[in-house]
């Protein structure tokens, strides 16, 4: 299996010299099995360049097929989709997966991104054959030779974690999520860290504990865990209500799951290359104490990893 990072940033794309090495595009990871099954996790701005590359293959002649697993529909995970060239070529088959909502079906969430007055090309006029699959929490399914497992994450409006298995390797994608301790996120808006609504009672604590256990199970023995580490410890203290984790949270989960490698991911827009370096160094020294066998890296645009049989 081959894993490629096309966008590693959270919140919004951040061009400029400060982010040149790790990259400024928002979340997008490509996973391709040895048999050629193509999975794309999230459609942040990174998916634009992936689309351009795909148009140099069978997608150009309308014979491409890809499966897009969407963690959640916050902008930084979908804003590249209108610029994903394979959508505009007749014959391509694209399957979009995301968590089912009570209020709105998935097709309409995605279609509304391309509505006037926001975008000049309506979703109806995309030429590819696009189908949507709405997922329940914990759904497990197969895509050709690839097995996909999911579990719910702790994020405003709820996000989905994926584990993609093929070729004897497994990669888990845990973004976006808060730690499973201080706040149980749901549909409501939290205006600040001390919002009284946010403090978990006994029942909420139990739900967070089982959510956390399910995430650890999803990562069990994974070759690679890609984890939302948007915040430093200090930033988390200020913004626990934003729904993002610290490297220490990722190390705890990946360590408990005895995963082989952890990729810090969803870097904050303010984080310069030097600051990501520093965050990685800090995470490695913590890892050396608490999860000795865990290899820790920081995801960057263009990072290409081969896992299992290739």
């Amino acid at each position, binding site marked *: 299996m081959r894993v490629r990072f096309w966008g590693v940033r959270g*919140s919004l*794309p951040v*061009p*400029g010299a400060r982010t040149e090495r790790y990259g*400024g*595009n928002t979340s997008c990871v490509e996973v391709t099995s040895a048999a050629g099954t193509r999975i794309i996790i999230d459609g942040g701005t990174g998916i*634009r360049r992936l689309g351009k590359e795909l148009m140099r293959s069978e997608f150009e002649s309308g014979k491409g097929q890809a499966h897009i697993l969407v963690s959640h529909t916050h902008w930084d995970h979908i804003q590249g989709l209108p610029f994903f060239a394979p959508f505009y070529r007749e014959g391509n088959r694209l399957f979009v997966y995301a968590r089912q909502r009570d209020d709105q079906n998935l097709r309409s969430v995605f279609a509304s991104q391309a509505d006037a007055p*926001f975008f*000049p090309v309506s979703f109806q006029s995309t030429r590819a054959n696009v189908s949507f699959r709405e997922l329940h929490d914990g759904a497990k399914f197969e895509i050709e030779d690839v097995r996909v497992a999911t579990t719910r994450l702790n994020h405003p409006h709820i996000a989905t974690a994926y584990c993609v298995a093929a070729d004897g390797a497994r990669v888990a994608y845990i973004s976006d999520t808060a730690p499973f301790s201080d706040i149980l996120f749901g549909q409501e808006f939290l205006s600040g860290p001390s919002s009284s609504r946010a403090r978990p009672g006994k029942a909420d604590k139990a739900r967070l504990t089982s959510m956390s256990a399910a995430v650890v199970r999803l990562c069990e023995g994974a070759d690679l865990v890609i984890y939302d580490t948007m915040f430093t410890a200090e930033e988390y203290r200020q913004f626990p209500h934003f729904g993002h984790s610290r490297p220490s949270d990722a190390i705890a989960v990946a360590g408990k799951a005895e995963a082989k490698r952890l990729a810090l991911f969803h870097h904050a*827009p303010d984080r310069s290359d030097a600051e990501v370096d520093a965050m990685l160094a800090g995470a490695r020294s913590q890892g050396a104490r608490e999860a000795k066998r865990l290899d820790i890296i920081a995801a960057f645009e263009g990072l290409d990893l081969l896992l299992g049989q290739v």
Partner: protein
Amino acid sequence: MDVTFWGVRGSIPSPGPATVRYGGNTACVSLRLGDGGIIIIDCGTGARNLGIALLAAEFGKGEGRATVLLSHAHWDHIQGFPFFGPFYVPGNHFTIVGGSQGSDLLERVLERQMAAQFFPVQSYRNMGARIEMHALSEAGEVRVGRARISAHANPHGPTQALAFRVEEDGKALAYASDVGYGEGGPADAAIRLYRGADLLIHDCTFTPEDHALRVTRGLASLDDAVEAALRAQAKRLALFHYDQDYSDHDVDGLVLRGRRLLDERGGAGIEILGAAEGLSLAL
């Protein structure tokens, strides 16, 4: 008045080593007026860095006031809204001035961008600052301090985008992003709006060759920008809204070629430059 560019790119931000000099953020320009007033034109991702700069002064204390001119609501002109820090400081006061379709539409645009499925804040009313909407018609005018703002709706593919003129103390700035003029070139009303501008910031998404393949996109070529500057007798032309795939080297090429075109067509007196993130100009 002073003009600063915070985002100069069209369509979608394009981070990476190839865009570091001109910048990869989408459209956002700020003006500081002679009396200290602040006008922001468009709110692409460049607005995030503008917000960080503004928070250092009165906007950080909830004492800021600014007018935001919105050319149209395509993503690359509004996607910085949710990340504009001063919107989150209670006490700040913003007036958003946009198209003639009405203030309801402006409000709907902001609300939909903030909707729960897309952004955790869920409503612009949760942001903290006071945000008001004002629809500007073609005949209308808005005043900010001593400055007068007027607009013209340019064709932009299947829709329209407002071009703006901001005039204060005898100095004029014109901003025309996202315009596809069609066969006859700029309308007379557009030229009137740009007339004699000390700085004309003009859409220059494409080279003439790339433009010929993408006419229906409703965006301008280098030729269009040069022609607008010549006809309007602008003093200075800033190329703007570059295609997301153009590298710094490509934009250098646009500027050089634009210089040559101006010289050839009797515009040797018109200064030309490529708008770049962080560039400030005094008018």
